[in-house]
């Protein structure tokens, strides 16, 4: 039954795929960049959906992992002439390891306490950046372009061109015939598709069921043979790695990395994005990211400071009213329908049985 193709679903996916591919051809630069930002935020929110939604480890510190990805990318590409691809992979590896290290003490704390500890991580991150001002640029931040005075300017320009690094940042290679913003969008889209497919695979596997079992009933998981500690720590590492991929996107998109972008506000925004859409789903983070960026665009300039308040209130209301988010509401309705069907089937079966018994008795 579940193996057969769901045509309506397939149609929706194909339509979305076509729209996603065509969009940058028909939209202006600022809209294309807005779509790129949605992809960035979706990816970051997915990291949170995995750790908090599927595995039940509440993290209020994922902004720090996003920031880590952005800073490592910026420093490696600008100061060390590392290519964007290599910088992304290195930051991914680094975030994975840091995620594992932070995941270890997280084994001993759960629920609200874990939220508080990860909150500390989020508040600490900008301070660490400021402390390391020599390489991070301190509170002002740095741009993702080779700076004069940093080594041989001409050589950097030359190397930068070869590695898609230019004064415009992430530059489209000539063979594509694309504008820089279009190229960047397609690269983000490709990366996000890969990340989302990997996470989807994970959640639908033996391991994914183990993660949900840990979230809902640790005893049941343990008795079934799920190694709780190993699963939790590895999930923390993978989630941090995904957040760092989003951080790479941030650096590439904004060409500018500064500590104000990675404060507790980002961590909370990610949680809102994940919870809003439905943290226990793969589509949820995308819905959340679209709503959050749409909301920000809808709020008139000058009253932006209120959006954080709105997010905060939205988060509380959501957790109270619809813990499963948008996807949760949809699923609940589906479940209810199936349950009604099953109960009806059972009743019909019972009635048939009784009718049969009655005829036998006669």
């Amino acid at each position, binding site marked *: 039954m579940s193996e057969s193709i769901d045509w309506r679903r397939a149609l929706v996916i194909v339509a979305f795929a076509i729209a996603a591919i065509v969009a940058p051809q028909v939209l202006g630069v600022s809209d294309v960049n807005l779509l790129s930002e949605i992809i960035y935020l979706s990816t970051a929110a997915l990291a949170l959906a995995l750790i908090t939604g599927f595995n039940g480890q509440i993290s209020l510190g994922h902004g720090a992992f996003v920031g880590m990805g952005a800073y490592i990318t910026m420093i490696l590409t600008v100061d060390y002439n590392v290519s964007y691809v290599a910088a992304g992979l290195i930051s991914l590896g680094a975030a994975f390891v840091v995620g594992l290290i932070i995941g270890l003490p997280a084994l001993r704390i759960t629920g609200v306490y874990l939220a508080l500890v990860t909150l500390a991580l989020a508040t600490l991150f900008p301070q660490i950046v400021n402390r390391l001002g020599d390489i991070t640029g301190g509170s002002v931040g740095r741009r993702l372009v080779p700076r004069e005075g940093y080594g041989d300017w001409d050589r950097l320009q030359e190397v930068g061109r070869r590695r898609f690094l230019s004064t415009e940042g992430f530059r489209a290679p000539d063979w594509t015939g694309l504008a820089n913003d279009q190229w960047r969008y397609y690269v983000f889209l490709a990366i996000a598709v890969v990340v989302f497919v990997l996470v989807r*695979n994970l959640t639908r*596997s033996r391991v994914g*069921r*183990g993660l*949900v079992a840990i979230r809902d009933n640790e005893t*049941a*998981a343990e008795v079934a043979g*799920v190694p709780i500690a190993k699963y939790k720590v590895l999930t923390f590492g993978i989630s941090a790695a995904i957040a760092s991929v989003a951080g790479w996107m941030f650096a590439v998109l904004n060409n500018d990395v500064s500590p104000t972008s990675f404060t507790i506000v980002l961590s909370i925004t990610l949680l809102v994005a994940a919870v809003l859409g439905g943290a226990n789903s793969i589509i949820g983070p995308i819905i959340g990211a679209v709503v959050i960026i749409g909301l920000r665009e809808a709020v008139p300039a000058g009253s932006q400071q209120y959006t954080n308040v709105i997010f905060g209130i939205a988060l509380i209301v959501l957790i109270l009213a619809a813990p499963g988010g948008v996807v949760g509401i949809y699923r609940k309705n589906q479940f209810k329908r199936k349950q009604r069907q099953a109960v009806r089937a059972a009743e019909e079966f019972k009635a048939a049985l009784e009718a049969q018994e009655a005829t036998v008795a006669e």
Partner: protein
Amino acid sequence: MALLDVEDVSVRFGGVTALDGLTFGIDEGQICALIGPNGAGKTTLFNVISRLYDADRGAVVFDGRDLLSLPPHGIAGLGIARTFQNLALVQGLSVLDNVMVGAHASTTGGFAASLLGLPVRAREREGRARALEVLERVGLGGYAQLPAFGLPYGTLKRIELARALAARPRLLMLDEPASGLTHSEVGELSDMIRSLRDEFDLTVLLVEHHMNMVMGISDNVVVMEFGQKIADGPPAQIQGDERVIGAYLGGPG
């Protein structure tokens, strides 16, 4: 030789001695019932075997292996599965996925393979088919896609039974599987436990208060009181044991 040997096991919670030098064994293929008044320590013994509780003293040996040196998640892999007196289902998963969680230890596929998806597809299909078979076997074939909550109590208990069976266990531990069931359901369950034992070559450790069921299907009965064993033998002998009648069978269950 016994498949499971409980040797002089003691567990204390503060001032309460839940198990007090408990010793008994279960032979392979037997249905062994563990009975005794509430608070006798039956569930505590299950939790010691599952490694959820630490024993203060004693040993538990399964098929020649010392269980008490293993981590909790290492028990299922040896072929020990159980149900819980107070349900322990994963509410966020469907009935089918709950049963598949039960097969965790008897299947393979780690993080890397799961992320990449492809190498595990075939195995996943196989596991799904097997889980469906088990659900059919306990009469819940039509429930596979439902969430594992909001269903009748007896159904939830049977999902737990299916989950335990999915582990392909050698030892199946059932903690009050008949509690909350109707009279006819209890009869059905008794028949099912017997036939499952024969079909899957199980050894069963059964905690139950329904005396008709216990006396009807057990090969051996262990009677507990205050964490100690007060009698041990075939049902006919236990039913005639004066101490047991005094402590348990005579009184209101």
